[in-house]
């Protein structure tokens, strides 16, 4: 069946002959001209950029600032007292108590 016969002179032989002239599809060079060159993934890591909404950027910056402040406070805080281990303590066996009395002018 003819693909296009509305003009009234469809010709299968002519159509078949015409199909002997084939041209390829769009080349890769055209892709690069229209869409831009394709970059390797590692090239993107080095030179790429990401568009970000301003509110998201502000939220991320605020979170980073709060983290930095919290870390800074942790560094300047006094060290917590070390716990005392009483396991090595022994009761006092001999206790000599020296009493020192103050002179209140009695002599």
């Amino acid at each position, binding site marked *: 069946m003819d693909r296009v016969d509305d*003009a009234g002179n469809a010709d299968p032989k002519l159509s078949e002959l015409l199909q002997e002239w084939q041209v*390829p599809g769009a080349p890769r060079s055209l892709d690069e001209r229209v869409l831009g060159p394709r970059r390797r993934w590692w090239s993107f890591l080095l030179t790429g950029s990401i568009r970000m909404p301003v509110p998201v950027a502000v939220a991320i910056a605020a979170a980073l600032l709060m983290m930095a402040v919290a870390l800074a406070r942790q560094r300047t805080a006094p060290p917590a007292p070390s716990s005392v281990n009483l396991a090595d303590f022994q009761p006092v066996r001999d206790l000599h108590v020296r009493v020192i009395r103050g002179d209140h002018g009695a002599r």
Partner: protein
Amino acid sequence: MTDPEFREAYRRHKDILYRFAWRMTGSPASAEDLVQDCFLALLRNPAAYDSQRGTLRSFLIGVTRNLALKKLRGERPLGELDDESVACPVIDPDGRERAEIVARAVAALPPLQRETLILAEYEEMPLDEIARVVGAELAAVKSRLHRARENLRRMLAPLLEKKGTAYGSCR
């Protein structure tokens, strides 16, 4: 039009546009230029495409077609785009590949006949869609296609005779 939409449109239609532009101009380099200009036009003014008037494919082919005709007019400013009196001479097939002979024959057609033939025979586009793309009446498109085939039979008579048809070389 968002970037993903543009990329999808390009991916879908680049081959048909490139093939059409190549067959219209006879040059792969010109075809690249035309297709790039077509998509740049879409990028700059996406509102120019109205989905109510037809498919995006038809719109893009129409843009490419206009760019191709503008280029052809620039190359041959005094030439007619569709001269009904043109009777394309037989092409001497001596020493040429059949595909090259066919390419020369199609290139020898007047531009308006050429575009109609390309869209009908190579891209299998319905005539009513072709009429929308080229901005002409359906009757005019049928007439152009009819004359294009007649001219091609004349030009390619040596090859068609080898295939065993009854066509003569001239009318």
